[in-house]
C-alpha cells in the first residue's frame, strides 16, 4: 500500500524542501512506498488539494490570508499534518517582523522603497498580509513538528521512515549540549564575544563568551554548527522543558554581562534570543498591539 504524501510551502524560503531533497539516497528508498500527490516543486498544485492525504509536510509560516486558507484546506484532506521547519514550527525568522507593526511595514514597502514607484498598496487579486506572522499551529491542529532551519535531512528521513512503519516519531527531549562534543563550561566568561571572532577549538563556545543558544535549544541536529565552531542560533526552538528559549538564554547571560543584557533593544533582543521563535515566544506575548486572530 502506498502512502499519500503532500508537501506545501507558505511564507518561507523553500529551504526545507531542499533539505528534503538533501536526504539523498534515503529519499529514493522512501519514494518506493510513497505517492507524492501534491508538492509544488514537482507536481501541479493549481488544482484543488486532492483528498485522502496521509501525511502533509507544511513549510513556512502563516503570513497572509492565502496561507491561512491553504493551511486549513490541507488540514481538511490530511490525516497527519507536520509543521515542517522552523517557520512552520515556531514562526521562523519571518516572526521577527512581529517586532514591527504589519500595516506600517506594508506601507513602507509600497510607498517608500524605490521599486514600488506607483505608491499604491495592491488590494485586488493578491493575498492580504495578516497583522502578525503566525506558526502553523496557530491556525490548524498540528500532529507533529520537525524543527530546524532547515531541518536536518537525517531527521526528516527518520521521521518519515518511522511514520511509514506505522509508528509515532519522537523528537529528542534534550538540548544541543547533549550532542555537542565540545569541552564543557565550568567558568563564567568575562565578556561577550561576537560571532566573527575566532573561537578556541574544542572548547564550549558559551564558556568562551560566544552567545550559543545550545543549552535551551532542542537536540536532534547532531550539533552540526557548534562542532564546527559556530555558536548555535537556536533554529530548532526550545527543548522540551524550556519555558521560553530566548528568556532562558537571556537569564544565562544575565550572569555574564549584566549591564549589556539589561539594555538590549527589542529588535536585538528578538533577533538574538528568539531568532526563529519570536512569533511563538513569550517575548511576543508580552508585546502590546499585536493581536493574534
Amino acid at each position, binding site marked *: 500500500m502506498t502512502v499519500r504524501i503532500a508537501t506545501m510551502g507558505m511564507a518561507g524560503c523553500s529551504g526545507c524542501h531542499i533539505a528534503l531533497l538533501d536526504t539523498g539516497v534515503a529519499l529514493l528508498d522512501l519514494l518506493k512506498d510513497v505517492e507524492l500527490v501534491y508538492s509544488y516543486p514537482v507536481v501541479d498544485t493549481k488544482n484543488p488539494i486532492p483528498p485522502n492525504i496521509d501525511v502533509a509536510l507544511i513549510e513556512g509560516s502563516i503570513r497572509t490570508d492565502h496561507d491561512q486558507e491553504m493551511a486549513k484546506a490541507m488540514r481538511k484532506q490530511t490525516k497527519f499534518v507536520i509543521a515542517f521547519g522552523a517557520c512552520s514550527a515556531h514562526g521562523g525568522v519571518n516572526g521577527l517582523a512581529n517586532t514591527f507593526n504589519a500595516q506600517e511595514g506594508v506601507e513602507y514597502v509600497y510607498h517608500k522603497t524605490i521599486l514600488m514607484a506607483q505608491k499604491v498598496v495592491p488590494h485586488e487579486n493578491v493575498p492580504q498580509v495578516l497583522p502578525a506572522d503566525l506558526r502553523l499551529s496557530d491556525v490548524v491542529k498540528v500532529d507533529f513538528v520537525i524543527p530546524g532551519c532547515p531541518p536536518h535531512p537525517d531527521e526528516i528521513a527518520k521521521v518519515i521512515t518511522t511514520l511509514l512503519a506505522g509508528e509515532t516519531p519522537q523528537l529528542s*527531549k*534534550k*538540548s*544541543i*549540549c*547533549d550532542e555537542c562534543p565540545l569541552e*564543557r*563550561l*565550568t*567558568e*563564567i566568561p568575562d565578556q561577550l564575544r561576537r560571532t566573527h571572532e575566532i573561537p578556541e577549538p574544542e572548547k*564550549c563556545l*558559551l*564558556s568562551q563568551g560566544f552567545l550559543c543558544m*545550545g*543549552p*535551551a535549544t532542542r*537536540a536532534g541536529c547532531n550539533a552540526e554548527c557548534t562542532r564546527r565552531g559556530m555558536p548555535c542560533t537556536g533554529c530548532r526552538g526550545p*527543548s*522540551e*522543558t*524550556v*519555558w*521560553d528559549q530566548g*528568556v*532562558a*538564554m*537571556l*537569564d*544565562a547571560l*544575565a*550572569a555574564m554581562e*549584566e549591564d549589556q*543584557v*539589561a*539594555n*538590549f*533593544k*527589542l529588535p536585538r*533582543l528578538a533577533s538574538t534570543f528568539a531568532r526563529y521563535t519570536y512569533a511563538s515566544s*513569550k*517575548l511576543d*506575548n*508580552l*508585546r*502590546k*498591539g499585536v493581536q493574534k486572530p
Partner: protein
Amino acid sequence: MKIGVLLCNCGDTISDTLDYEALTTFTETLPKVKHVETRSDWCQHEPLQALTQTLTKKKLDRLVVAACSPHLFGPRFYQATEEAGMTRGQITFANIREHCAWVHQDNPQGATAKAKRLIRASVFRVAAQSPVATKTFPVTQEVAVLGAGVAGIQAAIDLADRGIKVHLVEKEPTIGGHMAVLNKTYPTLDCSICILGPKMAEAATHPNIELYPYTELTDAKHIGKDWVLTLNKKATYVDWDKCTGCMQCTEKCPTRVDDAWSWNVAKRRAIYMPFSQSVPRKVTIDAEYCKKLTNDKCGVCEKVCSAEAIAYDMKDETVNVQVGSVILATGFKEFDPSVVPELHYAENPDVMTQMQFIRMMDSVGPFGGKLEVPSDGRKPEKIVMIQCVGSRDERYSWQCSAYCCMAAIKHAELAKLEYDPNLDITIVARDIRAGGKGFDEFYERAKEEYNIHFEYRGDELKVVQNNGKPAVKYTDPYGKAHSLPADIVVLSCAMTPSPGTEELAKMLGVPLGELGFFEAQDEKVALARTNINGVFLAGTCHGPKDIPESVEQAGAAAEESSVWLSTQSVSKELDVAVVNKDVCTACGLCIPSCPSQAISFNESKDCVIVDEVRCQACGECMATCPVDAIGPLNVNPVVLDAAINGLLSNSVEGPESVIVGFACSECMYRAIDEAGEERLQYPADLHLLEVPCTGSISTPKILKTLEAGADGVILFACASDLCHYGRGSRMANSRAQVVRNVIRQSGGDPAAVQVVQMIGREAKEFAATAQKAVDAIKGRNGG
C-alpha cells in the same frame, strides 16, 4: 496523599483581623485536604503532643501550619511531626500572623483574602514537596592544618590535645613561620622565639600531631564529607632520620645563596637550616643551587657528614591523607615594595623593609645583631620609617594592614634599646592606629621614653637620593612639604596573601576576597568558618592581623573544626539540590553559579551531579538552569510553580490585587517578621513566598509569575554585597533589570517588577519600601 492544615488564631491576635470561619470553610475545600483544625495555642506542648497522635490516627502525610512565622516555632512543629514519622519535606508553613493579620489590621477583608491565598499556596506547595531522606556521612576524625606558623601550630596543638589526630603541613623545611624570626613581639617586647619555640617543640613531639615539613598540597578531593589531600613531600636530599643537626655541612658548603629567611639581607649556604631554632633541627639541600645536584660537582657535604645522612638521589614523595576537616593557616607574604616606583627600594640598598630591618638587628640572626648602613657599613645615625607601604594606597590595597604601626614602633624602640639610645628615629605615618590592648601605652612610651619622632604624611611621599644618602620627601596633611634625610629608610609593608593562595582556593573551593585573602563565611559571627563545610581559617591567610589575633582565630578554628568532626558524623537531611538526569543536558551553566562549588559533571559528562555535603540548597543553580533540570529538593521549579499557582489561581474574592514577593529567607524574611511584630502596616496586595535566596528566581520564573496573573513581582533581596551566597542578590537585581528591559521593550510598563535590596532587621524600612513598591505596581495599573 492526605494533607492536614492547622489554623492557629494565636489567642485571638490573628482572629481579631482574619475571619476564621471563612478561612476554615475555604481550607476544607482545597484539594487533598483531609483535616483542618483550629486552635489558639498550637505552639504549646500539649497541642503538639495531640498533633502527633492526630497525624498518626488520620494517616496524614503532609501538614500545613497556618500560624506565626516558621522562623519562630518551626522547630517545634518539625519535632512533633518527626515523632509521627514525617520529614521536613512534608511540612510547610503559611505565615498568616507576621505576614498578614498583624500588618493589615485596618483591612480585615483584604487580609482574609490574602490569608486564603497564602494557605492555598502552602497546601499546593506541600503537595508538590517530597519527603527528605537522611543519610549518614562518616567523617574521619582527623584534621589537616595547612601552614605551620603560629596560627597553624596553635590550632594543631589545640586539636591534638583533644585527642584528634592532626596532619600539620608546612612548605618550608621548618615550622614556625614569620613569628620565629621576628626577634621581639609588641607591645611587651617579649622574645618572639621564646614564646613560639616551646609551641614548635610541642607540635613536633605531640603524639597526635604528624608533621609534614617541606611539603606542599598538590590536590584536594572531596569524598563524602571527607577531604583526601595529596601532599608532595619535597626531597630534602638529606636523610632526616640520620641527620643530627650538627651543621658541619653548612659550614663547609661553598655555595652561597640569598637567604629568604632573612629577606635576602644575608646569605646562606646551599645546604642549610633556615634558622638556628628550626624544628625539625635538620638540614636541607637547596636543589636549585647545590653544585652536586645541578652539575654533579662538589659533594663536600657528603664528605663532612659523619652521620652519612646526605642522600643526593632522594626523590619527592607523594602521600595521601584523608581528613574530616581542613584548617587553612597559610599565612602572608610581606608586600614587595619594589613595585612602588617612588620608593626606589630595588635600586637603593639603604631602603629596606621592616622584616629585613628586624632580621638585621636580631642578635641570633645572620648579622649577630650588628646594625650598619648597607651601602657603606657606617654606623647609622638617622633612621626614617615609612608607614602604609602597599596598604591604604589605592594602587595596591585600600585595606589597613593592621600590624605595621605597632611593628614599626617596636622596631624603633628595639633599635634604641639594643643598639644605640642616641639614634634619631622618625616614623612617617598617615596616622598611628593603636587600638589593641596595651597598644596606645606602647605608642605613648615610644614618644615619651624613647623620644621617637612621629610625623604625619598626606598622599605624596617619595624617597630621593641626596649626596649618596636617602631622604624622604613628603607633604603633610596640610599640604606643607618636608624632607627628612636618613641613613636607613625602613618601609612598613602591608601583608599580602602568601604565594599559592589562589591555587589553594581553587583546590578547596574557598572564595577569595577582593584583596586575595581567604574569605570567612561571615566577618563578624563566623570568622573562622569558610563557605565550604569543614574548612576553617586561622591567621593571616584570612587578612592582615597580628599575633594575638592570629592565635585567637586559630583557637576558634580548632574549636569549630572539632565541633564539625563531632557533630557531622551524625546524619544530614538531604534537603539539597537534586538533578533530573533525564532533563539535564550537561551544558554546565550551573557549575559556576554554585557558591559552594557543589556541582560537577558526572564521569560520562552527560549530566551534572551534586555534592550532597557541600550543597547548601540556596537554589542559584535552579535559576541558572535553562531547562529546569536542577533545584533544591523542596524549592524546585515544580514546587515553586505550585506555590505561585496557589497564590494566583482564581476563586478567592477580595478587593486586592495580587503582588507576589519572593523573600530571601536569610535577612529579608526576618525583617518582614519584625515588621509584623511591630505591627507596621503595609498593603495586603503583597503576598510573600519564602525562597532560600532571591538568586534562585530566574528571569523566566519572574515572567511566568506575571503570566500566571500576578499584578507585579517584587524580589526582596539582601543588600547586594551581603548576600549569604555571594552573588545571589546581585543576580536577582540583574535578572530583574533584564525582565524590566524585556517588558519595556515589548511596550509594557517595567514597574511591574521591583527589586528591594536591603539589610535585614530594617523592619521600618521594609514596610516603607514595600508600600512604595506596591504603589509603583498599582500606579501602573491605574489603581
